[in-house]
């Protein structure tokens, strides 16, 4: 087992817990909206941002967050303006970000700088600092307020956007907000699980919750619970086995999903 200072354990456990909460809360909406590829898109936006940061000699994490936020802001309005499904625009932004990353990397001298940019894609819980935890905590708090206050509007938009609009709900606002908060949650979780694996934190807990419930409210409650438990168990697994933290979290959440499929009450037929 790896020996770590207590302060680092507290910061990293809090970081993992909050990332699990924020990503899997937004995952409930992402799965319903069929936008699972948003994880790839945001992680590559962060990668391009990190490369940009290194190119202009600023902190790569700052560049990563900046690019992620811009992508999160742009996603909804571009999809609306282009009259295309959000998934198509995600594909467009994903390829654009990879292209930008390659261009920026071309201007960074030395292999070590390239490795720094690539680190964004893998993440490391031990690099989490108090600011990351504070930001994730703030985001989680805002998410809870957003979901509780606008639950009835969100659930209407998730059921059927046009019907929600026909009954007088400003669906565009809520649609954009969901895309934006998802981008935000992914961006802030990058340092913990990395860009490539953050997407599992969005999809796996919600997919697990879906195996048990037909009620959106229950999925919305249990998805973050499963996300948080996956992160904590994954963290422990990482400490005892020396596995990378992101990979450990993904393995645990995938295991939960596999068990859920097997024991799902949705597939059981009750005898009279």
């Amino acid at each position, binding site marked *: 087992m790896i020996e770590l200072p207590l302060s680092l354990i507290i910061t990293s456990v809090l970081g993992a817990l909050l990332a699990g909460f924020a990503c899997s809360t937004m995952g409930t909406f992402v799965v*319903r909206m069929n936008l699972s590829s948003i994880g790839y898109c945001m992680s590559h936006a962060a990668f391009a941002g990190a490369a940009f940061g290194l190119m202009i000699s600023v902190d790569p994490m700052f560049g990563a967050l900046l690019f992620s936020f811009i992508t999160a802001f742009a996603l909804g309005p571009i999809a609306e303006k282009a*009259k295309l499904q959000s998934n198509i625009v995600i594909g467009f932004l994903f390829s654009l970000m990879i292209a930008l990353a390659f261009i920026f990397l071309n201007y960074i001298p030395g292999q070590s700088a390239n490795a720094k940019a690539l680190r964004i894609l893998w993440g490391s819980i031990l690099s989490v600092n108090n600011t990351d935890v504070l930001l994730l905590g703030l985001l989680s708090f805002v998410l809870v307020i957003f979901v509780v*206050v*606008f639950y*009835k*509007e969100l*659930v*209407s938009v998730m*059921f*059927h956007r*046009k*019907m*929600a*609009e*026909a*009954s*007088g*709900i*400003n669906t565009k606002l809520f649609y954009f907000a969901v895309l934006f908060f998802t981008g935000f949650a992914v961006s802030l979780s990058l340092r913990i699980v990395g860009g490539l694996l953050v997407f599992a934190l969005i999809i796996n807990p919600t997919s697990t919750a*879906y195996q048990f*419930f*037909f*009620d*959106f*409210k229950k*999925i919305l409650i249990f998805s973050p619970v499963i996300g948080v438990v996956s992160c904590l168990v994954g963290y422990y697994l990482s400490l005892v086995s020396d596995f990378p933290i992101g990979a450990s979290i993904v393995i645990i959440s995938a295991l939960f999903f596999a068990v859920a499929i097997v024991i799902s009450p*949705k597939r059981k037929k009750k005898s009279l």
Partner: protein
Amino acid sequence: MNKNIIELQNINTIYEGEKIPVIKDVNLSVDTGDFVCIIGPNGAGKTTLLETINGLLPYTGGKGFVFGKEIKKNKNFIRKHAGFLIQNFEIDGLSPFLCKDVVMMGLTGKTGPLRFHNKKDWEKIWYSMGLVGMIDFADRPIGKLSGGEFQKILLARVLAQQPKILLLDEPLSNLDYSSRHQIETLLNRLHKKYNITILMVSHDLSFIPERCSRVIVIDKGKILMDGAKKEILESEIVTSILKNGGKK
């Protein structure tokens, strides 16, 4: 009370990026308590007409008023007071919504943000579920219902709004005979009991509810005929239009 609850004057609606209007120079006046059926072949502009009245599609020419208010400037108000049942859409069997929650969604626009549904709201939800005879289905997942049951829940959702106008887009399509008959009876009952104004789109002459007194025939975006149900239904032109799918 406003006698003309819906008033359209030379309305043209063009879809974004297109040049030809889907509905052209439409003039329509509907009185409070009217039960009007709009019939026409597929692609005639029936849905576009309902969506224009609801404010989902902006008109590009003419003027439209609902409840005496111009549609363009008051679409949110209109949507909250005119229940719109959109054309049958497919829903996956694992859709994570309970019937009572789907009915509750009808009320959400009218309730507005920053307020939770209270006891009175839930009373409206139970009442509208009772009206369509679906109260026992409250905790059933929406994806597990039959076509007729699903349509009744969607109707309950619209009724929960307590609308003054019902805009119904093909509410009887894709249903078996028994379900069609149930919905038709329900619409007749609602109209008789609440004197609610109903505009119902159909492409099938055989399913015009008994209490419908006026029929409008629309084809290629224009109103071809507008009159009493008996007179319209006996017209040979109508039969020919519907049989030939709009090609005369």
